[in-house]
């Protein structure tokens, strides 16, 4: 365990508990007070991953879940087993950090329009076939047709939002941020589905269980219904989270960011 300790600088060690608290407090507030059908409990995890690397990010995610589950006064609920998913999200965020996904990339004119079109196309092209062909698939267990319609509608909405973002902020980063969010969401759905199926009978206890029910009614088995629900809510949630993280990072001073291991990749071209 000591080698794990040695990898992190004091600054990262200070950041992680703050990120864990952000995860839990925001996640709880969004779920109970604002009552939105998204989680937003990974903002801190992704922030740490992007600034400090995959292991720090994974640790943040895992500890957030375990603390939310087991800590006296805070603990309860059924979030613990999903620590694995949280760890994966943090790991991915570390990869996005290495790739400087969240770096501002100001552009104008033709570049913007090209990028906006590319973003729209990528979002649509990536989302639909994946919902069509989940990796666990058994060719007999497809989804009822309304699922595909819903997926297409969501993809269009997401594409519009991403295009709008790129255009309004004149920043190509919107494209990468959206891709990072969607990919993270999809992978998270695949990791969560078996956990949910094995531990919790394929449901989550939230409103999205109506979707699970509908999918089962349409003929999906336990794992597929769980996966379908995940592929519906996770990419949306993680893409929103991804944009929130981008907003946060662009609001932080370059001096603050540069002191983190991966932070300087975000500010390389910034005017100080």
């Amino acid at each position: 365990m000591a080698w794990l300790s040695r990898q992190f600088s004091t600054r990262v060690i200070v950041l992680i508990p703050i990120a864990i608290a952000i995860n839990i407090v925001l996640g709880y507030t969004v779920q109970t007070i604002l009552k939105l059908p998204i989680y937003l409990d990974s903002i801190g995890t992704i922030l740490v991953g992007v600034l400090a690397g995959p292991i720090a990010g994974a640790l943040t995610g895992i500890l957030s879940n375990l603390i939310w589950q087991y800590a006296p006064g805070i603990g309860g609920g059924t979030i613990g087993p999903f620590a694995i998913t949280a760890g994966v999200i943090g790991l991915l965020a570390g990869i996005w950090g290495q790739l400087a996904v969240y770096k501002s990339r100001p552009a104008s004119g033709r570049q913007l329009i090209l990028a906006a079109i590319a973003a729209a196309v990528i979002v649509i092209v990536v989302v639909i076939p994946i919902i069509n062909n989940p990796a666990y698939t058994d060719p007999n267990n497809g989804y009822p047709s309304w699922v595909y319609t819903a997926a297409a509608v969501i993809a269009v909405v997401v594409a519009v939002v991403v295009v709008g973002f790129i255009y309004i902020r004149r920043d190509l980063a919107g494209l990468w941020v959206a891709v990072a969010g969607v990919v993270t969401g999809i992978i998270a759905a695949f990791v969560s589905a078996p956990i949910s199926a094995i531990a919790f009978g394929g449901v989550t206890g939230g409103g999205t269980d109506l979707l699970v029910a509908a999918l089962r009614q349409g003929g999906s088995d336990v794992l597929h219904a769980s996966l379908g629900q995940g592929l519906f809510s996770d990419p949306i949630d993680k893409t929103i989270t991804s944009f929130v993280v981008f907003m946060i990072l662009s609001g932080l001073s370059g001096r603050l960011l540069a002191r983190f291991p991966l932070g300087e990749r975000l500010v390389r071209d910034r005017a100080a």
Partner: protein
Amino acid sequence: MSVATGTLRLSGATYRYAGARHDALTGVDLELAAGSVLGVVGPNEAGKSTLCLVAAGLAPVVVGGRLTGSVTIDGRETVGMRPHELAQRCGILFQDPQAQLSGTASTVFEELAFGPCNLGLPLGDVIDRVEASLATLGIAALADRDPARLSGGQAQLVALAAILALRPDFLVLDEPTSQLDPQGTRLVGEALRDLARESRTAILVVEHKTSLLDQLADRVVVIDHGRIVRAGPSAEVLGDPALVELGVEPPPRVRVRAALAGAGLRTPDEADQLLAEPAR
């Protein structure tokens, strides 16, 4: 160059934060000798906090940035030291009491033990140091309290005690009372006075409340735009009317004397006698 022991010395210290366009400190010469108290005043954004970080060695060692010139403690350059070595030679106290507590201790006792435990000292030594710090600042009654639930003044004393537990020879205080209410200010002010009087710890204290410096400091320097513009015995520097132009409010006794003299109510000599001895 002769090297005096027991001295914290800045020679031609010029410091720039990472990514900054201008130097925060320029050509600072400063000497803090054992057992002395040095006050630092200046307008806002003059570089007082930067001076604290540089004097304590935390800039550039922890904060990054570039330092030219030299900062030495007992003749040894601070840039070559590791943070934990610096911590044992020069302690630093900031404005916000709660932000500088470890945030992991359930009792004040454990908060004070945080530093010595980090050094891996034998348990007996840790306990001795904690009890000594509690006694020095007179806060033994707080030992079993939760640090997060203390008043501002109490928390600031606990933070100070925690620093003292590392037994530094030098102490740098960056506006220690600025976030405290009058009661807290009084508490911390008295503790600092006793500390300065009784121990050989050298103290560098930045303060807006010049009345506090009046009572504490032997010498005072004035810093403006990153440079030392005035240095001398505290009575002299604080009594200088030019201080006001720099945006520094002189201590009350200076203001009262000026007002009395200006209103012709007393001769300057009589007013001086009345006010020469600040309330101790």
